[in-house]
Structure formats: structure tokens, C-alpha cells
């Protein structure tokens, strides 16, 4: 079984997927379709898209929508527990993270200063909530730098991808974002970032490019 991840050539919202595929030990490659030329060839006209191929290379399964792909891989490879209650507590954090990203996007897509400022205000409020929640989970979980259990979890991976996108990618378009985020990070979340980055399951991927952990504490 092999996977193809279709996305743009950038961090964006696909980083959690790259980390999950790496952590799963799966054979995977990435495609960067010509855009918007290839829009109509995607199930929902959007990316990311995940293609699952069987051993002989034939396509078995195609899914899209970032959260859906993340949960599919997480469940398949055991990064989300089978217990529905435990899984729901991880998934709800990721849903909140999605809304933070959406609010931030408003700063770019909205046309007037007032709407851009409101988007920024909402971004900060929701980001505070995410950081509060992550810090609480880490403390309740014994301050090991993990939010759930003793091993790398879906929520840990999604969080790392989230901060990587904000600090390394979004900051290129919105230069103040990296500082906003860094000033809000708690010691617990900083430890989360470094714990994920150092995890043997994802080191192959996190060691590429600049260290997020170093940037977060710079």
C-alpha cells in the first residue's frame, strides 16, 4: 500500500498529513498539481487529497478534506484511540485549531481594514483558547510534553503542524503572526513542540528545513 498526497508546495494545512504519513511508516509521495488547472480533477475541487494505492499501484481509495484525511490516517495507524470518548477529546481540539486558521485567513481575504482587524481579534481570542487548552491538557497529562497518553498522538501532531504553519508559513504573508504566536506560547506548549519534533516516528520529516522548536523559542 502506498499513498499520494496532493497539495500545494508549501506547509499550509497539509503538514499534519505529512507528519501522520511519516509517523505511520507508510510509503508516500507528494504531488503538486498545476493549479487551478487541476481543480476539476479533484473530488471537491480542492486540496489536500489523499490517494491510497494497493501493492500493484491501482487506486483503491481517494479522500479529501483535511480533517477527514487526518482522522482516517490517525485511526488507521493508531494515533487516535479506538475509544470514541478519548478520540472526541482529541478531535475537538483540532476542530478549534481549524477555526483559528479560518479566522487568520480573514486577514488576507477581507477587503477592508475593519474586517481585517476583526479577523485578527478573533484569531487572537481563539489562539488563546487553543493554547490554554493545550497547556491544561499537558499539565493534566503529567507535563511530559504530550497532551494525551504516553506516545505521539493525533492531537500532538495536528498541533505541531498548526504552529509550523503559523510561525514558518503564515508569517511570510503576515509578518506579525510569528511574534503574536511566540509571545503567547506557554512553557507547556513549547515543550509539546520540541517533544513532537524530537519524536523518532517523525524525525525524518521534522528534521528537514528550519527547526520549529528553535524558531518558537528564538
Amino acid at each position, binding site marked *: 500500500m502506498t499513498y499520494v498526497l496532493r497539495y500545494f508546495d508549501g506547509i499550509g494545512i497539509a503538514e499534519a498529513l505529512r507528519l501522520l504519513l511519516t509517523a505511520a511508516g507508510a510509503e508516500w509521495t507528494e504531488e503538486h498539481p498545476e493549479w487551478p488547472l487541476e481543480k476539476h480533477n479533484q473530488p*471537491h475541487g480542492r486540496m489536500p487529497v489523499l490517494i491510497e494505492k494497493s501493492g500493484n499501484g491501482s487506486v483503491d481509495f481517494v479522500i479529501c478534506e483535511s480533517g477527514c484525511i487526518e482522522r482516517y490516517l490517525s485511526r488507521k495507524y493508531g494515533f487516535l484511540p479506538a475509544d470514541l470518548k478519548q478520540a472526541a477529546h482529541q478531535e475537538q481540539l483540532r476542530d478549534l485549531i481549524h477555526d483559528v486558521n*479560518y479566522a487568520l485567513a480573514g486577514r488576507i481575504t477581507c477587503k477592508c481594514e475593519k474586517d481585517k482587524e476583526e479577523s485578527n481579534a478573533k484569531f487572537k481570542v481563539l489562539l488563546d483558547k487553543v493554547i490554554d487548552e493545550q497547556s491544561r491538557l499537558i499539565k493534566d497529562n503529567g507535563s511530559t510534553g504530550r497532551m494525551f497518553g504516553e506516545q505521539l498522538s493525533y492531537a500532538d501532531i495536528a498541533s505541531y503542524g498548526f504552529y509550523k504553519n503559523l510561525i514558518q508559513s503564515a508569517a511570510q504573508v503576515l509578518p506579525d503572526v510569528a511574534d503574536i504566536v511566540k509571545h503567547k506560547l506557554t512553557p507547556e506548549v513549547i515543550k509539546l513542540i520540541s517533544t513532537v519534533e524530537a519524536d523518532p516516528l517523525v524525525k525524518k520529516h521534522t528534521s528537514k528545513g528550519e527547526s520549529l522548536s528553535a524558531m518558537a523559542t528564538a
Partner: protein
Amino acid sequence: MPNPTYILRYFPLVGLSEACRLLLTAANVEWTEEHPEWPQEKPNQPHGRLPVLVEKNPDGSPDFIITESCNIERYLARVYGFVPADPKQAARQEQICELMADVFSYLSGYIRASSDESKQMFLGKFEALLETLIEVQTKLIEGNGNNGRQFGDSLSYADMVAYGFYKKLMIAMARFDANVPKFVKSKLTPKITQLIATVEADPLLEKHTSKAGSLAAAVSV
């Protein structure tokens, strides 16, 4: 062991909770709704937002509390069997639900934006993605044997989410902007109209859909 009972905390609105209400009804569990004083009760919610679902178990274990509307929907759908256990089949339902959530996000942006230009931007995105959604859903229904369902032959998670979604657009949004329901209606295909009617008529949902206005009537007039 009797089933758990539930409290759904939300505002007294269709809003983001309609699919949750449908799932609770279809699950045939005892549930009630709480409308917390807002914003006073904000700090008492896990993410400072609503909806929140409280599950009370008869064995005396502590309440199980979750939040985020899509997360609540997926949890109820999985626990009560409205989404298949097979991960690929479940993913196919989840992906259309995630698309619906994004379409609604653009509509929310349109309603909340201050300037006409921002409004036009969101409206454009909403309209384009809604058209994609309707195309994808219509194909699903056609590929599913034209039985008025997106998946399988009984009431599914994705069908309930779809009903809640169209109810938001056709009925809930009408008070903000009458053009929204008009536009949506102009884009609906007969298959979607049939989907809405099929869900509304499902015996599992009778207790809930018989209250308030009929969405099936609203889309066909």
C-alpha cells in the same frame, strides 16, 4: 444497562446544532436542551463556545463533556451507528460533512463582514463552493440508486448533517438576508430536494421534524 442521557447546550436557534438535535432524536435517547445565559456562562464551557454536549451515564461515572459541533455530530453518529464502522465508508461521509461546514463558514463570513467588498468576497466563495457541494451531493444520490439518500438505504449521519445544513441556509439565514434562501433554492437539484424530503419523512426523526416549519415545503414551493 440503560442508555446514557444527554444535555445539548446551545442557543435557542437552528444555528450549528440542528444536525446534533436530529442525531439525538434518531438515536432514540433521552435528551434535553439547555440555553445558558450568554456570555455569562462562556467561561464554564470547555472552549468558551457552544454547542456543548453533556453525556450523563447511569453507572454514576462523571459526566462526559465534548464541544465543537462537527465533533459532537461525529461522536453521536459513531456511538449510535449512523456512520459505518468501516473506516473508508465513514471517511466518505465525513468528507461531505466537512465540505458542508466550510460552505457554511463562508456564509457566516458574509453575514458578519462589515464592508460591502468583504461581503462580496465571502458571498462569491459561498456561492462557488455551494455549487460544488450540490454537484457532489447530487452525484452521490444518483450513485446510491436514487433513493433520496447519499449513502446506503437507511438514515445516515451525512443525510442528517445535510438536512441541518439546508435548514440553516433556507430557514435560519432568511432573517439575515432573504437573498440567501432565494439563491440556494435556485441551485437545488431535484435530487437534493428529494434528499431533504426523505430525511424529513423518516420515522426516526418524527419527534423532531414535526415541530416548527417544514424544510421540505420551504424548498419546493
